[in-house]
């Protein structure tokens, strides 16, 4: 289990977080089961760091992000942000906390209201939270647009007049408006073209340095996560299977899933690509409504044994700062 005590370095502490979505069937809409999207996830995020959260589609990484921000009411577990337990906060208290935690969404086409101008979009958080009034709003908006390298003269335009990369900058400006300390970036670049991705990632890195921001960077692109993160957590079917510093995770992955995932990423270099050893996983990810017993990964795992079906491997600290949920992780040490 991740360290229980909170120290000053820890901005966010997530403990055994669960988010189950009920499945209703029949005339009376009785609950017949649950999609266990997030099923017992624990980790810390340190102040000023970027924690990467990677996994394939449907592994629960986005749900984890949304549940941390209390956009979904968690089924179980706790989320502690700057020492305050978010799960039991209500109404106005929660609203006040939201100023400090913001989100950048994946799809810059769907996440901006097409009927609002850029000034309204970026100014909206300021108005909602009474952070500025009147002319001050326009000033702040202009400043925010400059921060994300957009011309403040564009403030009167509508989202459809911008390209994908520019829209994502608007999304970043909106997230920055209330001067948060923590931003969850939910696949912020996966909808963008390759040459535009680098622009947005460089911007996020500059802003982090300038404002001492803390990021939870959710993505499926392992190369980009390696680039931007200080530490990386790997998710599979609702649970974190491995968490370590980025150098250690990429150099010496200890969980068989992480190993397979890393070996599947194509490298843009034919020589290096040809030299690699590939682990190709068989089959598909099982349904989170009916996950396998014991270790979630055992159905596709190349080294699974009988014990893996019987009990769930503990998420344990195998080396300082390196957590892994596998009975046989020692083999790879």
């Amino acid at each position, binding site marked *: 289990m991740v360290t229980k005590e909170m120290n000053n370095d820890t901005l966010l502490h997530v403990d055994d977080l669960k988010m189950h979505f009920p499945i209703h069937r029949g005339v009376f809409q009785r609950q017949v089961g649950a999609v266990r999207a997030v099923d017992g996830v624990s980790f810390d995020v340190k102040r000023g760091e970027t924690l990467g959260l990677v996994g394939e589609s449907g592994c629960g990484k986005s749900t984890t992000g949304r549940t941390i921000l209390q956009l979904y009411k968690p089924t179980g577990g706790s989320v502690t942000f700057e020492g305050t337990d978010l799960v039991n906060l209500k109404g106005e208290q929660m609203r006040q906390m939201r100023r400090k935690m913001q989100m950048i969404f994946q799809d810059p086409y769907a996440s901006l209201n097409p009927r609002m101008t850029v000034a309204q979009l970026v100014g909206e958080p300021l108005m909602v939270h009474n952070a500025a009034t009147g002319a001050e709003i326009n000033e702040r908006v202009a400043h925010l647009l400059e921060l994300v390298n957009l011309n403040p003269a564009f403030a009167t335009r509508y989202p459809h007049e911008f390209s994908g990369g520019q829209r994502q900058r608007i999304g970043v400006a909106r997230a920055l408006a209330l001067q948060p300390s923590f931003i969850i970036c939910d696949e912020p670049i996966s909808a963008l*073209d390759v040459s535009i991705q680098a*622009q947005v990632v460089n911007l996020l890195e500059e802003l982090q340095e300038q404002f001492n921001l803390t990021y939870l960077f959710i993505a*499926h692109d392992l190369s980009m996560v390696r680039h931007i993160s200080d530490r990386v957590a790997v998710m599979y079917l609702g649970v974190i299977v491995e968490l370590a510093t980025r150098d250690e995770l990429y150099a010496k992955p200890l969980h068989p899933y992480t190993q397979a995932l890393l070996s599947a990423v194509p*490298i843009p270099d034919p020589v290096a690509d040809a030299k690699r050893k590939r682990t190709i996983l068989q089959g598909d990810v099982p349904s989170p409504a009916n996950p396998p017993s014991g270790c979630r990964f055992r159905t596709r795992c190349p080294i699974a044994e009988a014990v893996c079906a019987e009990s769930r491997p503990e998420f344990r600290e195998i080396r300082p700062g390196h957590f892994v949920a596998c009975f046989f992780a020692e083999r790879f040490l």
Partner: protein
Amino acid sequence: MPDFILDVQGLETTFRTPDGVVHAVNGVSFGLLEGETLGVVGESGCGKSVTMLSVLGLIPSPPGKVEAGKAIFSGQDLLKMSKEDIRHVRGAQIGMVFQDPMTSLNPVLTIGRQLEEPLMLHIGMTKNQARERAAELLSMVGIPNAKDRLNDYPHQYSGGMRQRVMIAMALSCSPQILIADEPTTALDVTIQAQIMDLVKRLRDELGMAIIWITHDLGVVAGLAQRVLVMYGGFIIEEAPVQELYSNPEHPYTIGLLGSLPRVDEKERTKLFSIEGQPPVLYQKPDACPFAPRCKWAMEHCWQENPPLLVVGPEHRAACWVDTRTGRHR
């Protein structure tokens, strides 16, 4: 002149839109050798998909129009063929796999029915022969219990399995060429690795030529022998795969490779970013289409669009500037 099984010359395609005529493909020429795997790389809107759809006669007209060019396949120009004739080439001699396996399959027909259709249509198999062959094809692409699974509908298959079905369908009539348009983009990396492994195996077994269209330079590195890079409806660089990655010549290719983080990255460096964004061409450009984003751009670049110039053995790039010296070639 090498012996190309597909030889495309001077292809131009436009689309009529409310904002004006968009020049999507502006004189693209390339050849495909027998058994070769050709990667076509570029960002969205660069014309890579439209090029292949034009060759196959799949451009919806209107609004699209193939304005000029030739596409010679076994002695015939595909662009001049009647709809009926090209329908017999597509599916039979040239197989296709598209990006989205969820929408490329008909949801109300069983997988078996959809696999049998081209076999009966193009090869003239009987229903029973087609059934048997369909089961063989499914097991060839690695789907267990193939015979039983023929009766399933697409929604009963996962994304990766649907893409396997698409590949089985494309290869069902033993085509000489397989055109794959971003076939792994909608899939997760571990599933992508499965599909690429499958394609490599089938290529070795069946020996067809492949045109693999993608925006992912990583995917092409592990698969193609030769690569075309497209930008603004032009081929801007062409080289054997190792040469392209070790000695990229066009500033766009250099920028694209520099903007990619690598999973085997040694230390954290700032990503190289290409400022600005790809163009939408409302008229055929007189200047180099990349000039507005290019840090090496010089006067000549604004005056004349460079043709593909030979820069090395089998290596051509459409750029006036030698990026190593910063001087005119």
